[in-house]
């Protein structure tokens, strides 16, 4: 579990400040990552639901890829909107680590994007992609059960 000290007031002041020092930039980056992670944490049920649908073969790999990216893009837009309006969320202690799993899924999506977009892949089961997602799903389940 990651340990951190989140100071909402400090985050807000850094967001409003124009000329940041190098240290302040690093600090703001850390806060921004937490806000971004918090959005993934808030929507974790939807991510998990998507993974379960893929594993139970209710959707195919390509559908998962599209819906996952839509979910992620949507969170990205909310993040931009929150930042622009100086609306901040207090982060959950598990948010950062959960977000790393989302990054892992995103990595897989980028690795497979060319496959999904290629003509030869039509009708493929994309078993490797499914297996990767299943592994990540199991890791997420284990992580969520941890105290």
């Amino acid at each position, binding site marked *: 579990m990651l340990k951190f000290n989140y100071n909402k007031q400090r985050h807000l002041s850094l967001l409003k400040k124009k000329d940041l020092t190098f240290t302040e930039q690093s600090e703001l*980056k850390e806060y*921004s*990552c937490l*806000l*971004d*992670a918090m959005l*993934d944490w808030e929507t974790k049920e939807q991510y998990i639901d998507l993974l379960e649908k893929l594993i139970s073969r209710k959707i195919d790999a*390509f559908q998962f890829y*599209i819906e996952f990216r839509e979910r*992620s*893009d949507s*969170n*990205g837009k909310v*993040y931009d909107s929150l930042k622009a309006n100086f609306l901040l969320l207090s982060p959950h202690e598990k948010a950062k680590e959960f*977000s*790393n799993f*989302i*990054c*892992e899924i*995103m*990595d*897989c999506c*980028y*690795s*497979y*994007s*060319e*496959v*999904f*977009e*290629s*003509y030869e*892949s*039509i009708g493929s089961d994309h078993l*490797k*992609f499914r*297996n*990767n997602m299943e592994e990540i799903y199991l890791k997420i389940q284990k992580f969520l059960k941890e105290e």
Partner: protein
Amino acid sequence: MSSLLYISISSDLTKDEIFKIDQQVKQNQERVCVFIKKLPSNSKRKARKLFLYSIFLFQLSQPVFVTAAVVLPLPPSIDKFSSIEESKIKVNHKSSQFINIYTPKVDKIKLTDNQIKEFNDLVFQLNSGSMSIDEVILQLRGGDGLIDLVVIIAVVIFANWYNSSFGAEGFMLQDPFAWWNGQYDSKSASNGQCLSDPPSRFERKTLQQMKQMCSLEPDENGFVMTYDEAYNLIKETYNGALQITPECKISDWQCAKKAYHFQNGFGIDLDSYPIDKKDLVTLQKADGGLIRYVQRGGKLPPRQFIKDSQQKVYDFCHRENTEINRNAIHYSDKTGRTPCIMFFNRETEQIALFNKTSCDLITADKFRTNYFNKCVDSGQVGNPTN
């Protein structure tokens, strides 16, 4: 060019004969000039190429006693032909000293029955995808007998309109007859773009005949064309590239493939183009990529959209605060570990990734904060898969 064509035999002609020939050539050249000038401004480059070709074709269609003496070889390709210096093929300045015949308004094409048939045949082949524009031009050059100049011009104008205004969907997915009916005129175009001059009643009749010939019905799989036809259509439509740096470029094809990302991550305003977001979403969601999308009759991103997207990426890569990692890696399940050049901007959280070997764009998008940081810190997009 006209002077070049018959200068070698002029010694055998009387002064009156030379004068007559010169007058005829000059008159027709002026007509072509006015035609080309009236084309949309964004099609100047192609128009010039076609203009040069039209002039050449016209010269071929001159009476035998003129062309028979010409020893100039036929150009092996249109592209090569276009590289001929324009100055050499423009106007015979000597003759223009005593010939001053002008036709200020020649934008109405009057076709005879025979010309209608020739025009229909050519456009039908274009529409069905069995011939590309270049092949049609070649057909005009090498067809049975010499096709009349009016037909050549009609096809050139139509082909040019199709290319410059709508990209590939001009024939397949837009209504070519709407063009003929004036729906894309400045008065009718909703986006304020002037796309063509209104045709005459006679021209509309011609297109009406074509309409009956050109209706496209999807097959049982929902495809309106075969793989090869779709592939060739894309290849012919998106055959260029924008050089970003000496080692990076964005090919039109790749740009079209990633159109959704440009709209999403690079702030391209779709209102400026004749394409909807839903079309790009459909393209993005098309399993099998761009080819399958086209096979299903999907609307291709317009050329101007492609150009503007490429320019956006160009500008992004040349921004002052955009950084470069020349040793980045992209992991793909299809191609494996690919050395890349990564352009990234910490402020906008955008990344443009270029294949170091092919130089072409792999992806360009706005990334989520955490994933952006992960990619920039590791210099890696994607992950080795098991």
